[in-house]
């Protein structure tokens, strides 16, 4: 799950940077990237609360 979280955050962040540089800050592309990052962040905290200890073991 950690890999998935990392993938979502990196994908969203890269998408957001591209939306600024390539799409000149077009709001719809920004919103899509933000959605991906937000899902990544929620998943990250769910991972910390529910799965981290299991993976540690």
């Amino acid at each position: 799950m950690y890999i998935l979280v990392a993938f979502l955050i990196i994908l969203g962040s890269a998408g957001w940077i591209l939306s600024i540089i390539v799409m000149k800050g077009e709001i719809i592309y920004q919103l899509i990237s933000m959605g991906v990052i937000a899902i990544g962040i929620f998943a990250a905290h769910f991972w910390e609360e529910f799965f981290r200890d299991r993976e540690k073991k």
Partner: protein
Amino acid sequence: MARRVRETQAEEWQAWAKRYDIDDGIRTFESGLTWKVIFGALFIGLIMMPGSIYLQLISGEFSGGAAAPWVAVILFTELARRSFTTAKRQELYILLGLAGAAVAAGGRYTGYIWNAYLIQTPQAENFEIADKIPRWVVPPKDSIAIATRSLLHSDWSLPITVMLINLVLSQLRGIGGPYLMFRLTADLERLPFPMAPVSAQGATALAETTGKEETWRWRVFSLGSMAGLFWGGIYIGVPSLTGVMMSKPIQILPIPVIDFTQSIEGFAPTGIFALSTNFAMILSGFVMPFPVIITQFMGAVFTQFILNPQILYRAEILNLWKPGLDMRSTGLYNSLNFWFSFGIGKSFAFAVIGLAVATPMFVKFREARQKEVGERGSLQTPPGRGDFPIWLAIGMWVVGMAGYIYLIHWMIPNFPLIFLLGLGFIYTPIDSYINARAFGILSRRLFQVPYVRESFIIVSRYEEIDIWFAPFPIEDYGAGTQHWRVLELTGTRFTSDIAARLITLPILLVSGILVWHFIWKLAPIPSAQYPYVQYFWPINATNQCLWVTALRDGRGQMIQAIRGTYVSAGLGSSLGLYGLMWLIFPGKSMYFYGLLGGIGEDPGRLIPLLIGALVGRFYMIKKFGLKRWFMFNPVLAAGFTCGTGLVGMATVAIALLSKAVIVTQF
């Protein structure tokens, strides 16, 4: 390859919370409500409140506000010592809170005097609003109550009844709302609330002076007080006293900043750098978490020296700026061009992250009830703290808010109810939760959308002027949350604080109206007796008339400054930064919060904080050790506030006396 075990945000915050937890988190809870405290509140209500009201009318300064509680508590402890009795820290903290409430209660009636003035102004006449100001705000302008300058007249019964109903409802909201936020941020999330120990340790140190044995706390508090007296003498005393004697006061240090903005515009156009001369902030630098201050400063330097001049200015986003502007104008133009919108996005990111952190804990709610007291993710309460069920807190808040909205709907029946419901039941909880978390980590408000009320009025297309005089259900319980944390740190039973507030409320209400009535009778407000209001109220009346009549067209400058692209940029960049930092620096979320707080800020404002943080980290901790230093510094900061406050009150008293003397020719 085995991945190294990450430190989670939970573990990081738990560690910080422990540092700020005085007495190592072990404490017994006692009631702070005694007859002594009630008499203390009476004293404050009748003696301190008039001083602070008078000061406000004369100088516009609310400086009595910060100092009065400490002065009251010192007088109280001195009385206790002379009477060979002791004062508990719980009593002193409750008195400190009541003193603050008493000074604030004086402001409750300011609106009446202002509206009584506004309705009679030529501006109100010219803008044709004088006869449209509702009856629940102020009596008609030909009322005898206004002509005789009397608040004790039956014509005021409707405005005062409305205020009293609102007051009852606000108590329900003011207890339920912040308590709920406290349980979520302090109990469930275990946020550290870094500035909460300052008030807690101040009350503890003063309480010890009334006992038989004095400990290190009193010595450290005295040291802080002497430093505060010295600093207060330079920063407040000299300008205030010379202002009494001379036409232009002497300032040893320019107040509040030394502006270098024009000096840096050659290599950093649109950058702001204004060194704050309020070096009292060094004490806050001692107390605040070191990583937050360092990253905050880095964020601010990056903003003003790279982002503003090299990126935003070159991209012509900051296009209102012109060479030669000072810090205030540059800040205003940058804000209108970009930072106002970006800041809104940044604040929403704070909310999203807060929800992301809290949601898994809500999912584990059943488990939270089984966890031990003091554990992160636990909703168990320590025995004797005086807690009440969460459902009761929610119920109180819902009843208080529903009643409040009903009252506003009665005042402005044609305004769409859906807007009021949205603001009360959606905006207020979100705003409060974000700011409760901000206080828990950064000890300051982070989320503030200006002109929310004006925006809603424009969007609703409501054209009656009564809307401008009605209250709006927009509230923020963020700062109130910290109060519960201080109660916990001082071992004060929550129920005793609530009882103290409710018992003293009628005293403060009655004394407030009597004091205002008396001051209004002394001389018309505004008049030459009250120079500040005489100077500012006429222009304020014009401004209010302009708002009331001009915003109907929807041409508010700030409203136009909100741009969706930049709001998204603020939200997207903050979320991306948080996500990447979570991946790269596990267990170091303080860095992110500092950076987020610093972006858009002026680094000059943060320099005193930075000095404090560096001295604390590289000298004090080495000299005293981490544990002792974290015990010392909140006491030192509390003593410093007290010392500065004493100078403030003393100089105000001298200034008041000098103003009271009328020089005659013979």
